[in-house]
């Protein structure tokens, strides 16, 4: 038998174009929706509404008073801890809390003194978070030492 015209052996080819199209679309989707996730955490506050009978508590149960004053622009103008003026230095506030709480600081126990934060209405929120950070504890290496865990806010001072 005679074979006419010998065809070269052809390799079967996959059609890649459509797959690459889809893959690039997926890639663009993921690049556009990508957002670096910032880690977030909470300062937990248990704050039931003030009870009318709460006025009868004795002096030992009175909370530590932290007063934060604001300038007209909302910047921190002074920190007062139990009426002691600490300027605007959160380091001093932390040292004072350390002196007040003493050696009771340690791992989280849920016990200890209570601190009431009384702020001007227009104070920027980040200053309050700085104050809460200063009174709540400190980071020693990888370990976290708790100081004051019970926090509450005084009623808002409406302008």
């Amino acid at each position, binding site marked *: 038998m005679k074979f006419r015209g010998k065809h070269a052996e052809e390799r079967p080819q996959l059609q890649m174009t459509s797959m690459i199209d889809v893959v690039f679309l997926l890639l663009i989707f*993921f690049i556009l929706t990508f957002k670096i996730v910032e880690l977030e955490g909470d300062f937990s506050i248990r*704050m039931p509404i003030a009870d009318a009978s709460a006025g009868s508590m004795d002096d030992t149960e009175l909370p530590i008073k932290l007063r934060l004053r604001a300038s007209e622009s909302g910047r921190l103008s002074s920190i007062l801890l139990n009426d002691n003026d600490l300027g605007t230095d959160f380091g001093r506030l932390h040292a004072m809390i350390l002196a007040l709480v003493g050696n009771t600081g340690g791992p989280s126990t849920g016990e200890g003194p209570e601190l009431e934060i009384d702020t*001007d209405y227009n104070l920027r929120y980040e200053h309050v978070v700085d104050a809460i950070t200063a009174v709540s504890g400190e*980071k020693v290496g990888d370990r976290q030492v708790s100081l004051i865990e019970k926090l509450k806010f005084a009623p*808002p001072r409406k302008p």
Partner: protein
Amino acid sequence: MRVTSKKPELVEADLTPMIDMVFQLIAFFMVLINFAQTEANDNVQLPSSVLVKPPEAPLDFPIVVHVGADGRIFVGGDTYTAETLGIRFRSELAVLSARSDLEISDATVIIRAHRDCAVGEVQEVIRVAQDLKLVNFALRVKEDLQ
């Protein structure tokens, strides 16, 4: 002279390394994509603190409240004021009361306030929640990895 006609051959690029890379990139973005960003709000830039850590266990009944720099309050995509926020809290509490396994003390109001907002706005949110017997609050801040 005899001219032999030769079919021009198509030059084929080797696409294998490119496809490998593209699949690697897709896998990378797929792993990192976070569909649970529903809690975030573009109007809010959180303050930061070195003391906070991401919660280890999810809360039983979280109510996420966003407070923008201008004092606007956002809950679940709707905008409220301190006066109207109570309506939203009541509807959330109605959902809570329909669940037999939870009590009002299991609800936690997560406050995601902008770092430059007036703290009085945050206190107003707390006051409205307290009026409805909500007692647990969580001030959400960004973890500061110094």
